[in-house]
């Protein structure tokens, strides 16, 4: 049975179409979801795509994190449903508390849009099980508030538990410990600041290194 991956559109979401295309290229079926929905339409997994939900008002991801659909997403995520938050979606996952930490204004205040090399450091998640540990990927970053921060105690905890999923090789935004992606302890929820869905077609992207995230999810859920 084909894995059904919900892709949520919020007002101000930009990357829902790219995410849906990437899901399909990965071999799963993309199911559009709307921020006012509470019914997840029996999807096996959910992607929270990038963009500027609710105009980034208040804080990036803050208002999206209290939208009707996110109540259902949080509930299902706590039951083990895989959720991938990309960029603005990562910000939402931190705002809901599904992932620790927060994403703040880039160190140099610039919006950064360019491919960056990242190293995969955790292959036990629902979204990275396709990769080998230490895999190097070229994935576009595209953010103004991508500086990942958390308290020293929380940082020590996620490092000790191996929850860092990917690190930048050349930290573009000031994130602590070069963190580009993290997971929850169960490994079903992953937040990533670079955009794997923009690296799935060699004709229009930096390469196809992002496909592994979508192959991972197409293979892990029934």
């Amino acid at each position, binding site marked *: 049975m084909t894995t059904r991956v919900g892709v949520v559109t919020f007002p101000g979401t930009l990357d829902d179409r790219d995410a849906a295309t990437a899901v399909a290229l990965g071999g799963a079926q993309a199911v559009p979801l709307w921020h006012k929905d509470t019914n997840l339409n029996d999807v096996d997994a959910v992607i929270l795509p990038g963009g500027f939900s609710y105009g980034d008002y*208040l804080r990036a991801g*803050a208002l999206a994190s*209290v939208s009707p659909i996110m109540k259902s997403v949080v509930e299902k995520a706590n039951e083990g449903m895989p959720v991938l938050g990309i960029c603005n979606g990562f910000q939402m996952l931190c705002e809901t508390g599904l992932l*620790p930490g927060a994403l703040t*204004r*880039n160190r140099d*205040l610039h919006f950064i849009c360019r491919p960056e090399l990242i190293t995969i450091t955790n292959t036990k998640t629902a979204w990275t099980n396709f990769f080998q540990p230490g895999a190097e990927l070229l994935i576009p970053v595209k953010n103004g508030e991508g500086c990942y*921060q958390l308290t020293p105690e929380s940082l020590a905890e996620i490092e000790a538990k191996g929850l860092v999923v990917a690190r930048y090789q050349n930290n573009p935004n000031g994130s602590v410990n070069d963190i580009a992606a993290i997971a929850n302890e169960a490994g079903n929820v992953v937040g990533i600041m670079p955009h794997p869905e923009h690296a799935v077609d060699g004709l229009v992207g930096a390469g196809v290194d992002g496909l592994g995230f979508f192959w991972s999810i197409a293979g892990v859920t029934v």
Partner: protein
Amino acid sequence: MHLVEKIIVEVMPKPEILDPQGRAIQGVFNRDGHGAITNVRQGKRFEITVTGPITDQLLDEVEELAATVLSNPVIESYAIYADEGEGE
């Protein structure tokens, strides 16, 4: 003239959190010769207008919102107080 009941919520980045906006503002001040300014932190102020008198229950309700929505406890702290003044 009538009484305007407002609850004020002020949100600030925590001291240990890098505030690049505040730092940029400080840099401009220093560049323009204001050498006495050693630090600038940028925060937010919310003015929340309510109907009826500000009760403890209402303050608690808004404090819950301040703690969970208006501020992010990972990076921000907040202060909340009632502002019962004459308005327009």
